[in-house]
């Protein structure tokens, strides 16, 4: 703490030569590593730091560092903080598990809808489960396939991408290749206005 104030004093004295500090940010939780311990992904953060910045890992997580940083907190407050943190971590783990499961079970639907006898639009829905934005993906589709592509609201209140033209196979390929969605998570559906007709 003294060092900081003296550093600030020195900097004020030689202000013209202020050099920006390079700060390492954790690759897992994006915070400066010294704050990882307050996040919910401490274990992963530690592993990452050990692999990528071994020196920093030593200074932050060596046993002396762990002891000294307890600092001025009372024992009671410490225990409370630890309890809270453990709870948070558990929650985070659960959340991640749930998300992974959800990702596995969720399906992207590519629907070919007949507009007139020989014209089709392709409707893509369900990509939000894969952390994709409708707006950006719609734009990409428009660019890639050189066609009209927009985000529309469907009857259920959700959003979907409407691409003009029959592009279901191309979109399937694109989703797998560019956005990394497993093929088994994509379903192709055909929908015609007259039952049994079309196709």
């Amino acid at each position, binding site marked *: *703490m003294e060092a*900081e104030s003296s*550093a*600030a004093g020195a*900097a*004020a004295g030689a*202000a*013209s030569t*202020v050099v*920006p*500090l*390079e*700060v390492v*940010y954790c690759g897992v*939780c*994006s*915070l*400066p590593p*010294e*704050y990882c311990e*307050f*996040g919910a992904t401490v274990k992963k953060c530690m592993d990452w730091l050990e692999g990528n910045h071994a020196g920093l890992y030593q200074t932050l997580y060596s046993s002396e560092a762990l002891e*000294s*940083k*307890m*600092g*001025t*907190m009372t024992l009671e*407050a410490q225990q409370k*903080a630890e309890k*809270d*943190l453990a709870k948070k971590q558990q929650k985070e783990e659960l959340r991640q598990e749930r998300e992974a499961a959800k990702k596995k079970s969720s399906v992207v639907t590519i629907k070919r809808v007949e507009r007139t006898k020989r014209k089709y639009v392709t409707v893509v829905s369900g990509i939000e489960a894969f952390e994709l934005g409708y707006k950006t993906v719609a734009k990409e589709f428009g660019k890639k396939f050189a066609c009209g592509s927009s985000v529309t609201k469907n009857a259920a209140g959700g959003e979907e991408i409407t691409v003009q033209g029959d592009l279901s196979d191309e979109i399937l390929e694109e989703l797998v290749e560019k956005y990394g969605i497993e093929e088994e998570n994509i379903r192709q559906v055909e929908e015609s206005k007259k039952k049994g007709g079309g196709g």
Partner: protein
Amino acid sequence: MFKKPVSSSGKTKIKSSVQRNIRQKICEQFPLLEPVIDDVLPKKAQLDLIKAPERMSLYALDNQVLFFQHHNDAIMPHLRIVHKYPQCFPTVQVDRGAIRFILGGAQLMCPGLTSPGAKLPPPEGNLPEGTVVAINAEGKEHACMIGVLKMSTEDIKKLNKGNGVENCHYLGDGLWKMDSE
């Protein structure tokens, strides 16, 4: 302010005259930053304005938010800038117990600023109410929050009760995550 992820509605380029104004304002607000303003905000650079909900304006350079401003309030730096130039901003320090609350987005209460692990500027360096401050933490090297003083630092010492600093931007909030993605 950024507890939720920021949903921006597009960005626009800022006129160079407006940009000059912003630059000047920043210099006025953070006199210590003036020597390095050219590094932070090069004269020729094209700033972008990103509008966020609730009248929040984000000033970005190369897709990285540098400063943000609520309506016409004080301009505040992004934490990344504070990390790079920690000596250029007025700083107060909180004790270790407060860190986890800050990272959860809580307002900063006075006792966290007056306990043994915390540090406030000396009486002669009193910071008035409304000053934008970087919040450092006990035993940590980097700032973890940007806030506005709700009362002067002397008042914090005297009263030692209630809300001392308004939490505007903290590590891991929506604004922080928006940048690191």
